[in-house]
C-alpha cells in the first residue's frame, strides 16, 4: 500500500482501519484502511460497484460495518455515545448524489433547516445566512422560494452543497458532485469546490469518476479496487503507478483527453 511518507506530520481527521462491510454474503469492503488529512481534497475513485459510496456511507454511519474502526476527529464512531456522535455529525456536511433536498420545503427552508435545529438564531439572521450561502455556491436570492422540483440539475447540486455547508462544517463528503452536469457546469463546480475549500478551510472527501475533477481540485487520490484501497497519493503517483487497473484508469482513452486541460 502506498503510504504517505509525511503522514505522521499531518493531522488525521478521518481514520479508517481494517473495515469490513457488505450486504448479505457479498463483502464489498474487505479490510480497508484509509486516512484523510485536515485541509486536503481527497478524490476517491474506483470502478462502478467497487464500493466507493459504500465506504462513504459507512464512514457517515448509514451502513453498519462488520469489523474495524472508524475515527472521525479522533472519536471512535463505533464506540461513541449518541451525544458524541451528534457532536461529530454537526461538524460534517454531506452532498448526496441526487441532492437529497427535502422536496416539501423551499430552497431557503432547506438551507435554514439544519441551522434552525442546532442553533437558536433570529429569523432575520437565518434568512441572511441562507442568502449568503446561496451566493457562495454561485446562486442568488431569487431561488429562495423555489421548490427542489423546480430546479435544474446543476442548481440542485449547488443548493445541496449550500445545505451541506449550512453549519460551517469542517469536513464535507461529496458523492459524485459533478455527475449529471455538463462539462462547463462540472468545471464551474470544481472551481467552486476549490474556492470554498480555500475560503472555509474545508476537508473534502470526494467520491468521483470525473478525471477533470481529479486533475484540477484533488490534492490526493485514493483508489478502491477488489475491496481494498490499492493506492493513495497525489496525481503524479497515480500516473507513475504500474498497477494495471490504475494504468487503465489514468492512461485510458478518456484520461488522455483530460490530461492536457491541466497544463
Amino acid at each position: 500500500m502506498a503510504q504517505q511518507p509525511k503522514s505522521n506530520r499531518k493531522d488525521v481527521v478521518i481514520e479508517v482501519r481494517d473495515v469490513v462491510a457488505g450486504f448479505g454474503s457479498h463483502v464489498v469492503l474487505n479490510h480497508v484502511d484509509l486516512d484523510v488529512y485536515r485541509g486536503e481534497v481527497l478524490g476517491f475513485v474506483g470502478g462502478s460497484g467497487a464500493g466507493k459510496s459504500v465506504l462513504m456511507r459507512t464512514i457517515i454511519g448509514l451502513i453498519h460495518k462488520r469489523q474495524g474502526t472508524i475515527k472521525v476527529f479522533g472519536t471512535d464512531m463505533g464506540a461513541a455515545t449518541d451525544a458524541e456522535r451528534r457532536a461529530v455529525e454537526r461538524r460534517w456536511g454531506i452532498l448526496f448524489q441526487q441532492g437529497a433536498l427535502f422536496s416539501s420545503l423551499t430552497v431557503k427552508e432547506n438551507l435554514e433547516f439544519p441551522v434552525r435545529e442546532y442553533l437558536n438564531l433570529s429569523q432575520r439572521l437565518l434568512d441572511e445566512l441562507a442568502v449568503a450561502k446561496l451566493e457562495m455556491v454561485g446562486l442568488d436570492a431569487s431561488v429562495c422560494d423555489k421548490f427542489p422540483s423546480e430546479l435544474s440539475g446543476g442548481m440542485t447540486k449547488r443548493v445541496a452543497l449550500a445545505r451541506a455547508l449550512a453549519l460551517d462544517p469542517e469536513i464535507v463528503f461529496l458523492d459524485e458532485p459533478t455527475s449529471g452536469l455538463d462539462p462547463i457546469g462540472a468545471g464551474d463546480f470544481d472551481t467552486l469546490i476549490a474556492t470554498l475549500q480555500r475560503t472555509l478551510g474545508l476537508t473534502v472527501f470526494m467520491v468521483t469518476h470525473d478525471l477533470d475533477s481529479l486533475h484540477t481540485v484533488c490534492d490526493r487520490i485514493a483508489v478502491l479496487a477488489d475491496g481494498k484501497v490499492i493506492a493513495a497519493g497525489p496525481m503524479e503517483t497515480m500516473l507513475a503507478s504500474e498497477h494495471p487497473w490504475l494504468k487503465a484508469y489514468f492512461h485510458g482513452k478518456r484520461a488522455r483527453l483530460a490530461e492536457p486541460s491541466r497544463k
Partner: protein
Amino acid sequence: MSDTLLDEKAEGEQLKLAAGGAWVAKNAAMLETQIDHAARQNAGAKRVDIDMAGIQRLDTFGAWLLERLVRSFTARGCQTNVTGLAEDYRALMDEVHNVKLDAMPHRRANSLAYAMESIGITMVSVGTSIASIVNLFGAVVVALLRVMAHPRSFRFTSMVHQLDNVAWRAVPIILLITFLIGCIIAQQGLFHFRKFGADVYVVDMVGILVLRELGVLIVAIMVAGRSGSAYTAELGSMKMREEIDALRTMGFDPIEVLILPRIAALIIGVPILTFLGSMAALYGGGLVCWLYGGIDPDIFLSRLKEAIALNTFQVGMIKAPFMALIVGVVACVEGLAVKGSAESLGLQTTASVVESIFLVIVLDGLFAIFFASIGM
C-alpha cells in the same frame, strides 16, 4: 466563558470596537444581539474602527455578522475601518462582502388578500380537476375505441394482474366487512322492530337495503380506499420518475398501456365484489336473525323470497360498474397530477380517495332518483 465578543469604547464621534472570542456558529445568537446593540447605541458615531485582532476563530456566521455591522454603519454614512483581520479570513470576508440581499423575495404581509387568493386558487383547482376528470374520461373512451378496432393491442396480461390485485386479493376483507355490516343492520332492526312486534320485517329491510344500496356502496368505498389510492400512488411515482414520459417517447399511449387495463380491471372486479359482498351481508343478517332474533333460516329464506324481486338485485349490480369507472378515472387523474415532491404524492393520494368516495355517493343519489322515476 468570555461573554465580551465585542467591546465598545466611544471617544467623542469616534467609536472603537474590539472583537474577541470565537466568532462562530455556536456564539452566533449572542453575537447578533451584541452587534445590533452596538449599531443602535452608537447611531451618532462618525468614524468606526473595528479591531478584529483579538478573535480566535471566524466562520461564515461570524463573517456575515461582521459584514452586517459594517453595512449598518456605512449605510448611515459613517466611515468604517476593519483592522487586524488575519490573512486566512480575507477570502471569506470578500465572499460575504459580495452578498446582495435586495433580491430576496418578501412574503406578502396582507393576510386578507392571502386568504382571498387561496379561496380563489381552491375554486379554480376544483374547476380544473372536474375538467381533467372529463378529459381523461374522454381519452379513455378514445383508447377503448382504438383497442376495440385492434383487440390484440389490449394489455390483457396487465389487466389480469390488476384484477388479481383489486378483486381477488380484496375478497377476504370485503367479505369480512360486508358480513359485519349485515350483522349490525339485522341486530339494530331486530332491536327496534321488536317494540312493534314486527320482527319479521327485518328480513325485508336487510334484503332491500343490502341488495339495492349498501352492498355496492360499501364495496365502492372500500375499493376507493384500497385500490384507488394504490392506483394514484403507482401512477404518481411513475410520473415523478419520468416513466410515463419514457412510455410516451417510445410511441406508447400511457392511457392505453397503464390506465385502460386498470380501469377495465375495476369495472370487472367491482361487480364481482359487490355480488360477493351482498351475499356475505345477507348471510350475516340471516345469522343474526337466527341467533339473536329467533327467526329460523327457513323462515328467513322464504320471507326474503317474498321481500325482494330480481330487480332489487339488478339495481345494485347495475350501479357497480359505474362506481368502478368513477373510482378508476378519479384515481388515474389524481395520479397523473402528481408533481415532483413527496408531499404532492401524498396530497394527490388523499384527494383521490376523498373525491372518489364523494362522487360515488353523489352517483348513488342520482341512481336512486333515476330508478325511482322509472319505477324499478
